[in-house]
């Protein structure tokens, strides 16, 4: 009886001391452990927790597409290609589909590029449909669950809505055939048609070697207060402003172009990465879509991201506590950005920098070749593992059909 009492007394002590522990990372730079809403899961190893079966699709869905345009390997949607390569040689891959927890379909829907390098989404729905038709006829696993234990990578602007323009994307909605599948996408916005419940948000692809090659010594003093490089007005498509970025970027420019604390312009300097390492805050406002590679760059270079995108869902939101790492500013508060940023207490700023300095944080944002432990590939697998075990309900009774194979615009029905 007395022993139980002692245990009860000491238990809270242990729990309290383990939360928010300040670890001393390598090189004796003080960092802090990162624990999101799912717990301290950034360092989890997914191997052994799940098994993934990779469908063998004909090369017209993946290799041939890539051969036609190798630019797909370096643009910000390259995650779909690298994920395929990673899974092919990963220990979580299983060649026996009957023991697989998750099924992966390697179809590169974002690799049809315009001459200027931007992907054209017009054929992507048909390509996806054709791939799904193939796997549902060749293998029985799709029909078993109508895709509920399948996952797809759709890194394009609005995910599986397959359009770059938001209104058209909303009108289309997520491809009906993908309604039950888990979507791994870069787009994330709450209460939006193109974000399904249970989707996993990932960071856009940023080339790790390129960023590593621009590192400067960490004792270079951070002398820029706020940094941003990019468009404020998209003159080609929205000349008056107000449409692009919901007017937020234009508002930033109009309010802070004369403010010496804000180093913002539309330049394309060669020292972009170096300048980020000399800044304390880096603005990551929305553009045509709420996500941007700036977030990844800010995290890698230790610059606190200032996220200006209402209702955005950031990558690995359940594993990474973004509120503690970045600063969120509502779009309507943009004119008061300087007040908001200067009123942040210094200790909070220092803590955010310590969290950003944590190497697991930086690793989780990258897609290195070859894959390294705790990188974004592993975080995706961790996310998939956290969704296991599948409930019994996902398995359909025989002859039960949920998906409507003819739903969607008429143009999608044409074969690819």
């Amino acid at each position, binding site marked *: 009886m007395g022993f139980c009492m002692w245990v009860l007394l000491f238990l809270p002590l242990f729990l309290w001391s383990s939360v928010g522990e300040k670890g001393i990372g390598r090189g004796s730079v003080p960092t802090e452990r990162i624990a999101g809403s799912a717990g301290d899961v950034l360092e989890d190893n997914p191997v052994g927790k799940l098994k993934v079966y990779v469908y063998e699709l004909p090369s017209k869905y993946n290799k041939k597409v890539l051969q036609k345009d190798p630019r797909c390997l370096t643009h910000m949607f390259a995650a779909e290609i690298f994920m395929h390569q990673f899974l092919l040689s990963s220990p979580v891959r299983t060649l026996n589909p009957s023991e697989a927890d998750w099924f992966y379909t390697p179809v590169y829907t974002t690799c049809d590029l*315009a001459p200027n390098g931007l992907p054209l989404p017009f054929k992507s729905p048909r390509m996806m449909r054709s791939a799904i038709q193939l796997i549902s006829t060749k293998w029985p696993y799709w029909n078993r669950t109508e895709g509920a234990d399948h996952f797809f990578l759709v890194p394009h602007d609005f995910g599986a809505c397959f359009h770059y323009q938001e209104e058209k994307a909303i009108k289309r909605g997520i491809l009906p055939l993908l309604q039950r599948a888990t979507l791994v996408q870069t787009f994330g916005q709450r*209460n939006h048609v193109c974000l399904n419940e249970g989707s996993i948000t990932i960071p856009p692809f940023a080339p790790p070697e390129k960023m590593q090659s621009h590192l400067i010594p*960490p004792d270079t*003093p*951070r*002398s820029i*207060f706020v940094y941003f490089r990019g468009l404020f007005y998209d003159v080609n498509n929205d000349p*008056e402003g107000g449409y692009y970025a919901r007017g937020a970027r*234009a508002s930033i420019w109009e309010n802070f172009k004369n403010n010496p604390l804000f180093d913002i312009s539309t330049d394309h300097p060669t020292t972009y990465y170096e300048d980020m390492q000399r800044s304390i805050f880096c603005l990551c406002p929305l553009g045509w879509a709420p996500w941007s590679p700036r977030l990844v760059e800010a995290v890698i270079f230790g610059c606190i991201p200032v996220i200006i995108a209402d209702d955005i869902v950031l990558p690995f939101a359940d594993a990474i506590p973004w509120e503690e790492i970045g600063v969120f500013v509502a779009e309507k508060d943009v004119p008061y950005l300087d007040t908001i940023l200067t009123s942040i207490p210094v200790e909070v700023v*220092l803590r955010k920098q310590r969290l950003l300095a944590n190497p697991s944080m930086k690793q989780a944002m990258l897609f290195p070749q070859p894959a390294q432990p705790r990188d974004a590939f592993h975080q995706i697998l961790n996310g998939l593992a956290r969704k296991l075990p599948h409930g019994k309900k996902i398995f359909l009774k025989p002859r039960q059909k949920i998906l409507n194979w003819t739903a969607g615009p008429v143009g999608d029905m044409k074969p690819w």
Partner: protein
Amino acid sequence: MKQLTALQQQGRRSNSFRNASAPLDVNVDGSIKSPATIFWLVIHGLCCLVSLVLGFRFSRLVFFLLFSTSSTPSTTTIYTALQTTLPSSSPATPPPERNISSVGGGTRVVVGRHGILIRPWPHPDPAEVMKAHEIIERVQSEQRSQYGIKSPRAVIAITPTYVRTFQTLHLTGVMHSLMNVPYDLIWIVVEAGGVTNETASLISKSGLKIMHIGFDGKMPILWEARHKFESKMRLHALRVVREKRLDGIVMFADDSNMHALELFDEIQKVKWVAAASIGILAHSGGSEGELPMIRRNDSVGDGKNSQMPIQGPACNSSDHLVGWHTFNTLPFVERSARYIGDRAIVLPQKLEWAGFVLNSRLLWEDTDKPAWVKDLEEVGRDGEDVESPLSLLSDASVVEPLGSCGRKVMLWWLRVEARADSKFPARWIIDPPLDITVPAKRTPWPDAPPELPSSGEKVITIQENTEKRATKSGPRRKRSSRSKRKHTPKVLEEHVSSNHSRDN
């Protein structure tokens, strides 16, 4: 027109007139041509024409004004084609200290054209700028403590000085350099001839920890004697360090030298004694011409003298100290200056004190000191000359080379001085004010008559004063500005004579 080009473009984001024709949309899809749709089409066409003329989208403004868009919820859709400001929230009061978190669940973000929010006074608030700078300061000091020197030691800077024309120039430079040193600093200013208010008022502006010590004796005029005197002053300062047991790194910041801030970071590495390279800028102010260009010196056999204007440690390939670079003074010996203000090249000594850095514990008595250091009391007694801190050591090879073995120059030596008898206003405040009023060449009132009968006397007095000035400016001529000075009295005289002639 726009729609056509949009269709033609294979590129992206073609912005159709969707939002403009919001009322139209509903009907167009149904493709029922009712009178209402035709009416709207006509209005739309008219608005297009007007827009072409005006240059901005007229149609939507009309629609907005006529039909309030009640269908769109929450977020503002106030049109700001002319980018006028919005009464979105009262501009004076920024949002209260709210939790900077994302917008709460349930608010829907609307697709469409939004207003560009501009606050009425889009300029920085000075209080906020100060706060931002405080944040930057703190972040940088945190960076320094993480990545820079761990446990930095205090710096003890010793500066011998005395009151003279060039003192303000030199001492301000050193003062500002020391004010920017990010470590604890004690500045020992040794003044020849005792403590004066002149120097004290100058250095008190720095806000540094200062020990202002007087040293009896007048600064000699001959350079030879001057070097010796300065060495004595420095020894005196070292004695103070010893008495007070000041802890830190002793460096010699001569007031005529120029220091780079990297020097102070570099000297933190010293263990006992270290030496850094000094750039020697032996300068001649007269028309002696430039110093001869550095000739390639092949006499490496000696290895100790080079033509580079550098004084400092010399290392072998494994970065060990093997000797010293000194400035080769042989070519200039005949032309070297002998006294202050001499129109000749001022030469440095073989090894300047400024290039050496000591750990202050070497000077203390009764502490653990390495065997090779002599006690301070024994050195410099009986008036023997102490040329450089090497005299404090019995073994010169223990000196640690700094700045990647002397390759990095962070310190420059340059002695520019005015003549010993040159005068300057005390504390550089001109009191009483100058008593010459020279009439402006062009008065602002061109119609005003020129100064009448009384001007005759004025002119005479002006002439007298200019004569006085001409004599005064003689000794005050500095070497570099001599040519300039000659001209000014001439100009005055010319002007006066022209005035004369005009009056007459």
